[in-house]
């Protein structure tokens, strides 16, 4: 199944974050697996929530990305977003540990 999640960068830290919507409450989490899935009809409202987080100086540059959901796991469709979700793909000891399981 394909759906969308909302991603952004945290303002203070710069890290990649994803929107998790819990009722009226919005949280911005670094693990894409915790993100809320949105259908086409929900995206507009989700972006309103994101705009509120921008106004509250919590995040920067929010946008929706397409994801695939298989076996309960959320995986971005584009390589760029997979790198943002899991970290750089470079090998070697200066490569950072992934933020979530690939």
């Amino acid at each position: 199944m394909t759906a969308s999640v909302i991603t952004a960068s945290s303002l203070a830290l710069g890290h990649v974050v994803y929107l998790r919507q819990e009722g009226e409450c919005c949280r911005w989490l670094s693990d894409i697996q915790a993100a809320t899935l949105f259908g086409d009809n929900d995206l507009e409202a989700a972006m309103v929530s994101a705009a509120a987080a921008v106004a509250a100086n919590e995040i920067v540059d929010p946008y929706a990305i397409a994801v695939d959901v298989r076996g309960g796991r959320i995986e971005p469709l584009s390589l760029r977003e997979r790198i943002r979700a899991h970290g750089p793909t470079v090998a070697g000891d200066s490569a950072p540990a992934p933020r979530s399981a690939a």
Partner: protein
Amino acid sequence: MYRYDEFDHRLLSQRIGQFRDQVARRLSGQLDEDAFRPLRLRNGVYLQLNAYMLRVNIPYGLLSSRQLRRLADIAERYDRGYGHFSTRQNIQFNWPRLVDIPDMLAELAEVEMHAMQSSGNCIRNITADHLAGIAADEVADPRPYCEIIRQWSTLHPEFSFLPRKFKIAVSGAARDRAAVHVHDIGIRIRRNEAGEIGFHILVGGGLGRTPVIGKTLREFLPEADLLSYLEAVLRVYNRYGRRDNKYKARIKILVNDLGIGAFAALVEEEWQRLRHSALRLGPADIERMKAHFPRPDYLPPVNDTSEYEALRRDDPAFDRWAENAVFSHRQPGYGIVMVSLKRSGRPTGDMRADEMRALARLAEEYGFGEIRVTHRQNLVLPDVPLHRLPSLWRELTALDLAMPNHGLLSDIIACPGMDYCALATARSIPVAQAIAERFDDLDYLHDIGDLSLNISGCINSCAHHNVANIGILGVDKRGQEVYQITLGGSSGDDAAIGKRIGPALPAEDVPAAIEGIVEAFLAEREGDERFIDTYRRVGDQPFKERVYA
């Protein structure tokens, strides 16, 4: 090296105070992102794919051991324990938190380093030949002139909002090692028939989506006129450069549109107004700056080189390193040691904090506490007594810093690519790693000989792929990374833009394609010919046939 005076320290301190305040206002919401973005960029802070990135200038590639230790401290305290040396003699930290960056800048300022003008539409870090002051083929040391240009261009009020970024490189040697032909302004130091110092000024070079080799603007500019002439060039660019289209805004486009003759006439007209202004350099100005770059207290050559001779005879690994990584020094009894950051399984140009500290120690124990940074993402220990090379080699080997691949195929320049960069359309480093893995046989690499291979992850060409003998450009094609290959580029005295040889290839096919190109070269090669010479002699057909067979 140049030491900051009271004015420099005060300027930097005030600047950091301003930025600290700007960050606080951003975090509190008094500044929105549109207002804050140009402010952070002026201080070298990008928001990249995964995190903020701080780019720190290393002016003309010169680092002290104290500065390298501080970079190590910063990497550990505020980042993930490593730094990435870029292709413009900068170091980048890929994971800082915005809230920490003012403290990082304050710690950098303590060792006379900063990140101002490492981004934005201004005059960027002044780069130079990494062998400045030590090369055997040097006409004159470029460092004093680089420092004069650095001071003139730092926070220059007239040139803080140029149409686009502006890069200047300086070479003082017979052989160009600073890629002066592909900079907005390239400067080569020359002597005229009377033995006077002057400058050959090139303008309008650059890479990116419109790669251009710089054109001669003036064959010989007298030493005293350096700043007034640069000011005239920048004024003409600032006035006539395009601001309506960022892809047409670099000076190379203006020079091309006007023609070099008309551009030169505008510069000349402007220069006549400036030539006798306060920008004119007097002998005392130049001597004062030269005094910051004295020749170190070199010791007389040690006659007993028996250990060095024996090791070269008996240890092929040392012999290969001495042949490849040690360069002639202008001072008898000394050598220049290249330290490769192109190591098996390691990201190109990356260096861990513990390695930085170790190299700082070696710079002190085997030299005068100085390290150079090259635009090919390697480091240099500039003043090593020849009789101490065996001992240094053992230490570098233990640190995995003695890879003898300088100028060889695995000495790959790679931009951060889509693993880090928000602009990139494809990855660079993993492809570089796959190629290096394919060519990990040092005997084979040395048989191939001089060959530059550069990989950029987008058309902006940060890895200078257009001027590599083998250039690789990663692009996005309907959501897939594919790689275009160019051949025949060169960044030196015979500067040339590479030519694309055919359709782009998927990442997994790139190492085999490079292997085919090398096989074609070896089949066509005459004698000890370099790759570029064979390519120029036979054209691209034999290479195409191998790649697209």
